[in-house]
């Protein structure tokens, strides 16, 4: 279909029966940037995790034409990458370089090649010179950039970003926004930051209570005060 991400009727429920997502359908075209908005608990993180195959789901998820299942999980994860809400969950190696190289090494590249990819990803996010620093010696903004580098080094086609600007001050957020604006990959970004949505994204999908509440362009959704109010966003 040409879409980089194609989700049809996705549902996720937890062991105790509560439904996190119900009947979600959406798609993201190649190179397109889509924002995922909604109040806390709407299921944004769960949706991103489902795409990565991190939670059990029913329905259909396809990344770059390949359907996500337990068999194909490894392949699919080479095509899309996710950054977590908390960079401390994402950066788990002793140095940033090793974090960025973790993905390529698992993709099967030899150490020298993986190191080269990691180094260029770290440079691409503006952290050149900090490769051998440990994450706990890095600032919040640096950690967020490093998280991005860990999936850019894998040459993925789709970026799933969970609250990429959370906890950042104005300057760091702006820097991150500029960085993302320069990328060509497709993006699905869960966020509360409406400025970032305005600057970066063309379409918006609104989730509430595990269901899709609205889909449209940035102007349509963010310009509709009533809609935002009904779903706890204004």
């Amino acid at each position, binding site marked *: 279909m040409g879409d980089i991400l194609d989700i049809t009727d996705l549902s996720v429920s937890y062991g105790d029966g509560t439904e996190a997502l119900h009947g979600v359908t959406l798609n993201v075209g190649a190179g397109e940037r889509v924002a995922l908005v909604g109040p806390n608990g709407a299921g944004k993180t769960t949706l991103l995790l489902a795409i990565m195959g*991190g939670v059990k789901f029913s329905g259909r998820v396809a990344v770059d034409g390949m359907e996500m299942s337990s068999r194909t999980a490894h392949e699919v994860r080479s095509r899309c990458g996710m950054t977590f809400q*908390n960079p401390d969950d994402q950066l788990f190696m002793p140095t940033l370089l090793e974090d960025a190289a973790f993905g390529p090494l698992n993709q099967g590249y030899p150490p020298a090649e993986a190191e080269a990819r990691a180094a260029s990803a770290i440079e691409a996010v503006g952290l050149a010179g900090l490769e051998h620093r*440990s994450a706990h010696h890095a600032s919040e903004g640096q950690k967020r950039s490093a998280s991005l580098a860990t999936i850019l080094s894998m040459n993925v086609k789709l970026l799933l970003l969970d609250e990429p600007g959370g906890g950042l001050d104005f300057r760091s957020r702006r820097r991150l926004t500029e960085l993302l604006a320069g990328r060509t990959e497709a993006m699905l970004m869960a966020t509360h930051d409406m400025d970032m949505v305005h600057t970066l994204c063309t379409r918006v999908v609104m989730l509430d209570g595990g269901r899709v509440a609205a889909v449209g362009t940035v102007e349509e959704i963010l310009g509709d005060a009533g809609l935002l109010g009904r779903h706890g966003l204004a």
Partner: protein
Amino acid sequence: MHHRYIDRFAQGDSPVHRLDARAKLIAVVAYSAVVISFPRYAVTELAPLAVMPMAMLWLGGVPAWFALRRVLLLSPFVLFVCLLSPWYDRALHPAGFGSWRFEIAGGWLTSADIAAKFTLGVLALTALTSTTRFAWMLEGMRRLGAPSMLLVQLGFLYRYLFVLIDEAMRVRRGRDFRGAALAPAGRRLSAAGSILANLFVRTLERSERISMAMAARGYAGEWHGLNVLRFRARDAAFLAGVALYLAACRWPWLSAR
């Protein structure tokens, strides 16, 4: 001292920092062995051995107060032995310094000897670890043959050490601000237990999230490492120099009484 800075000198850059981690590790292990190989009444013979750790520390830009703080936090064993040895070993030994001759009880010599060996050992260890990034030490150990599972755990432990200490300190501060010191013993104990259990569960959940992050980046059971370290000519020269130095320190006393 804030925990975040326990590690900071290792992040610096100096001729010592740039030496290969494996060379430094081997050098310090050999050094430690030579120190403890001296007999138990050796005191002044140990003096030349002070040069290597001090050189590494000074040329590595590590301040003296940092190196000495560990020495001053005396090991209880060293204290115990130093205080009791003179009591138990009262045989007199002749000793000399310059043209001064005197006799001294063996126990005092043992005390000084143990204290000196302790100090030298701590200084050498500090010299090693404050001029070598922990991640590079791990890679060095891996390439020298240490079991990879242990090294993986060391990596995680190092990475999350400071994160968890931060969490614990925040929680402890919250507890202290709410007047914990005034509570009766039972409640204090109960609060500590509850905080620990909570921290424990949060840690379990954190490790689950890390697992997921690993899987998301393609981890499928096999662990791979980078090869960042490069053993160069200057590392070989360093090792050769250390070997000569240690031999020079030890040899004169090999047949001494």
